């Protein structure tokens, strides 16, 4: 299992691996929003948590279609299914690798980009914590979407449509926790809901992903 994690991380950092794709997209969104909204500091600071969350979510979505499609195309997935590793574990590891290369950099970049959006000072901690708690769910749910569309050529669009509704609860509670925190209110309740969603999906989603992947490989 460690070998699979190391392999996925190594592939992500090598040429063409896609590390930085999500991060670059996140950067572009947050840099461009102030230009499109206009120079209104108070408006920007009130939408900043939501923009950061939406940017992070779309950045996660962007790199999902590579998650299993590349392994499918070169035959690795067939061999992984026949390997002694449980498919549920293999997919959890792939989701973890996706989070480490996509979600984690977004969490780290968010406070820096928050400055561009005039995020209120007390919101930084909330944005980072809510993203750190919420982005793992995006990777795990995304793995399910990728498993569901694995045999389909150019399945990216279909996968986005399937995955986006599942992302909505995470987005609502994550952005709400960050918004409340930025406004100086207590965001504990949405944060707990967010944590519940994340841990629930981590516990259950790999089984669903493995089941649909077995069907997709037939």
């Amino acid at each position: 299992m460690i070998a699979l994690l190391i392999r996925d991380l190594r592939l992500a950092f090598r040429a063409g691996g896609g590390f930085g794709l999500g991060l670059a997209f996140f950067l572009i969104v947050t840099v461009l929003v102030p230009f499109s909204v206009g120079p209104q500091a108070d408006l920007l600071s009130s939408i900043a948590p939501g923009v950061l969350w939406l940017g992070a979510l779309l950045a996660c979505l962007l790199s999902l279609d590579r998650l299993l499609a590349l392994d499918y195309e070169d035959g690795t997935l067939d061999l992984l299914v026949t390997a002694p590793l449980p498919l549920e574990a293999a997919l959890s590891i792939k989701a973890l690798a996706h989070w480490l290369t996509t979600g984690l950099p977004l969490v780290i970049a968010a406070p820096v980009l928050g400055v561009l959006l005039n995020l209120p000072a007390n919101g930084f901690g909330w944005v980072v914590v809510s993203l750190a708690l919420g982005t793992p769910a995006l990777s795990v749910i995304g793995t399910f979407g990728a498993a569901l569309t694995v045999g389909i050529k150019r399945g990216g669009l279909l996968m986005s449509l399937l995955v986006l509704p599942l992302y909505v609860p995470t987005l609502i509670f994550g952005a709400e926790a960050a918004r409340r925190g930025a406004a100086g209110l207590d965001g504990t309740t949405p944060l707990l809901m967010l944590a519940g969603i994340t841990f629930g999906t981590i516990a259950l989603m790999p089984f669903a992903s493995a089941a649909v992947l077995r069907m997709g490989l037939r």
Partner: protein
Amino acid sequence: MTLRIDNLTLARGGIPVLTGLSFDLGRGAALILRGPNGAGKTTLLRTLAGLQPALSGHITGGEDQIAFAGHADGLKAMLSVTENLNFWASVFGRDSIDAALEAYDLHALADRLAGTLSAGQKRRLGLARLLVTGRPIWVLDEPTVSLDTAAVQMFADAVHAHLGQGGSALIATHIDLGLQADVLDITPYRATATTRAGASDEAFL
């Protein structure tokens, strides 16, 4: 460990391709599969590897014993030859890849990225993967595609050594490998159009 196939019916895309197929594959034995294109060789091999279910019939003795090699080699272009082999070795709980490098003469290529290898070299690397799995039953789909005569000989030697160690092999190929192997022509087992088709969405019901 004997792989036993009993009255198997297989479908591809919901259309039955093979029916009533039975055979045994014992220790140290090799079986060569023959049949025209579309006869169901790949479907049979994928079913044995556990990648798709059979419509009916039984497969016994194959659980966690089979190393599968299909049309694609499962190599990562951006990883080196050693990294590719080491990955599969650790997935299968093995630590040494030297024997595999030796058997397919890959030592000189060990540090090259798999993406820079020729088609034949990639295939050799893909076949070397079988040696690091340590599994007794090899299920191989057209393993000699894009191999030259020398590499085919390497492959035949590797299969021979594997059989000598009590392993077995089921190989779909049209090349004579010079092995002491039975030949199974699956053409007589072709399913007719009247055989009941399995619904392609049965798994969802």
